């Protein structure tokens, strides 16, 4: 009953000032976790945005999070992708690695294995761009840390349900 689960939640919201503050305030005010959160407009007229949230909690807490989100006036709908079935999750990362010699060559080789692209290079550094599930990004970053100084920028998770159904 009290197991902690991680859920990916998508909320369609009106694209208006303060809506993100309402969502974040809800999470901090009620003591819920945010592991990652991303937001961008998704309709042609930019009137609606999609917020993707990765959160964790007991099943009862996850239910509360969804109900509380639904209660916010500018939120049109809330979807628990984790509970609703199979879905695709992706995260984008930019990873800067400062290394030379064998380590530099090794970083390039690992990047190749991970299908990461070189977005920028200098004599002593690379910036790799990488897309994938969060665990893939985490293992890539971990490997890179062994090779030199690393700086990471991550987008947070975006997700969408598999199949032909459209929200």
């Amino acid at each position, binding site marked *: 009953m009290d197991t902690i689960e991680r859920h990916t939640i998508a909320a369609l919201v*009106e694209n208006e000032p303060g809506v993100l503050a309402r969502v974040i305030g809800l999470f901090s005010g009620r003591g819920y976790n945010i592991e990652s959160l991303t937001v961008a407009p998704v309709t042609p007229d930019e009137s609606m945005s999609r917020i993707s949230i990765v959160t964790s909690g007991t099943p009862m807490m996850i239910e509360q999070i969804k109900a509380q989100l639904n209660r916010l*006036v500018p939120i*049109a709908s809330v979807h628990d992708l984790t509970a609703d079935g199979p879905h695709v999750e992706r995260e984008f990362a930019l990873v800067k690695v400062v290394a030379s010699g064998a380590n530099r060559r090794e970083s390039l080789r690992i990047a190749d294995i991970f299908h990461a692209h070189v977005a920028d290079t200098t004599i002593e550094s690379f910036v790799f761009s990488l897309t994938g599930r969060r665990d893939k990004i985490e293992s890539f970053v971990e490997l890179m840390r062994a090779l030199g100084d690393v700086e990471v920028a991550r987008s947070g998770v975006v997700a969408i349900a598999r199949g032909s159904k459209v929200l």
Partner: protein
Amino acid sequence: MASERMTGAEMVIRALVDQGVEVIFGYPGGAVLPIYDALFKQNKLRHVLVRQEGGAVHAAEGYARSTGKVGVVLVTSGPGATNAVTGLTDALMDSIPVVCLTGQVPTHLIGNDAFQECDTTGITRPCTKHNYLVKDVDDMAQTLHEAFHISRSGRPGPVVVDLPKDIQFAEGDYEMPAEIVHKTYKPRLKATNSEVETAVEMLAGAKRPIVYAGGGVINSGPRAHELLTRLVRTTGAPCTLTLMGLGALPASDPHFLGMLGMHGSYEANMAMHGCDVMLCVGARFDDRVTGRLDAFAPNAKKIHIDIDPSSINKNVLVDLPIIGDVAHVLEDILKVWDAKNITPDGGPRQEWWKQIDKWREKDSLNYQKSDTIIKPQYAIQRLYEMTQDRDTYITTEVGQHQMWAAQHFKFEEPKRWMTSGGLGTMGYGLPAAIGVQLAHPDATVVDIAGEASILMNIQEMATAAQYRLPVKIFILNNQYMGMVRQWQELLHGGRYSETYSDALPDFVKLADSFGAVGLRATKPDELDDLITEMLSVDKAVIADVCVDKTENCFPMIPSGAAHNEMLFGPGDSAEKPISESGMVLV
């Protein structure tokens, strides 16, 4: 309807009039001057000048709760808005429809730390149901009408509309929207057939049912109260009410077990503990109601009707959640019940009532009577008996007096009882009474108060004086912040840290200085005369009833205990020490 050209400030007045608003509570200031000017030039709206903005919100709450209409507040920017925050939070916790209009610095100064600027929408975001900042005068009409729609529909609550001064001056087109259809906000009102069928089956099969109803019944409207009463009588189930729900079932109904929870009656709490089917109607399993969660109604199948999905499964997992408006759902349940012609099995039901009657014999609200000193419970009991035949409304402050009022005052109808339940705001009662009295000029409106609470918004005596409102303030003066002291007694070895009400004013002289009537009783035989006089004067009254200083509020479920672990009196508390986990609870 053709649109009309007018300023933003005029639109505010016009929208309020179009919403059927008759009274607004407010306090002027620099950022709302255009609205006050527009107010001056008309005579459809009545403005009531409070003495602090917090009072305005509580007055609007009292007005709203006693009428079922939306209460309206108008305050200035900065401190005007921040002073309103307590009232807004109070209205949010108790689901009271309030629209609060706040002035704001002109749009080009927002964010510049201008004089009397504050981030009103930021500050009020967590303490409102929704809020708006109007940045274009052409959005004004739609926003104001939408604010009323959101405030009163679904689970009601406070809505803030922040109005920059330049928008109040700007001219635009006003048109009342025919109907508000919100893009994303659509509360669900009706239950599905299968939910209703299942609920009826569960209730019909119950051997030991209980109905546990709350403020949602009152918010849903008079029809919900009628339907609840009919449901209770039809099913023959006992019914208990929360603090917010008092009046939802007539207190004289034999099915009524009294209030439940921390200071509820023994029979109500024991029946909650022992029931096999619980029907929760418009209540939210608050911690003051449930006691220790893992021991809450351990053998009950639970049905929960609530309009707010987030209230369901928040504290207690229920077997049948029903999202919808209480009146709609109860109506459907009764229809199915009647159609199926259900008569519950008489045997087990008789047993259940026999058991309940045994619990009732405990007479848990009983107290030690005295000839020499006024017992606070006795004062409330007499107040009840002597106002019974009048058109009476009761407000309270927060503390022991509030619980004694809930225990000993009996309400036959909804909307007669205004108390700060969720937030527990001391200082609520007097401004709320002012709001009630404005809505019901000929009624008897009594604020049952404590001597500490009343001082928190005592400045509103001037409001009562200005508008000649004959509110009656019935102070149970025990010279202590009694409820805090009671907890210090139970949990902190009787070390009364800062809970003595030192340097109290002379309430009789204080009344006099506000042009009100001051009365005092110190002995039981003076009490009836005091109440008689209080009720007969057509002026505001402060009645200083000097009660037993040591009396505590019983029965009580100590924090962290279960419904069947009640304390009944001072002797009781010594025997059962409170657990450490209970101590940390509020």
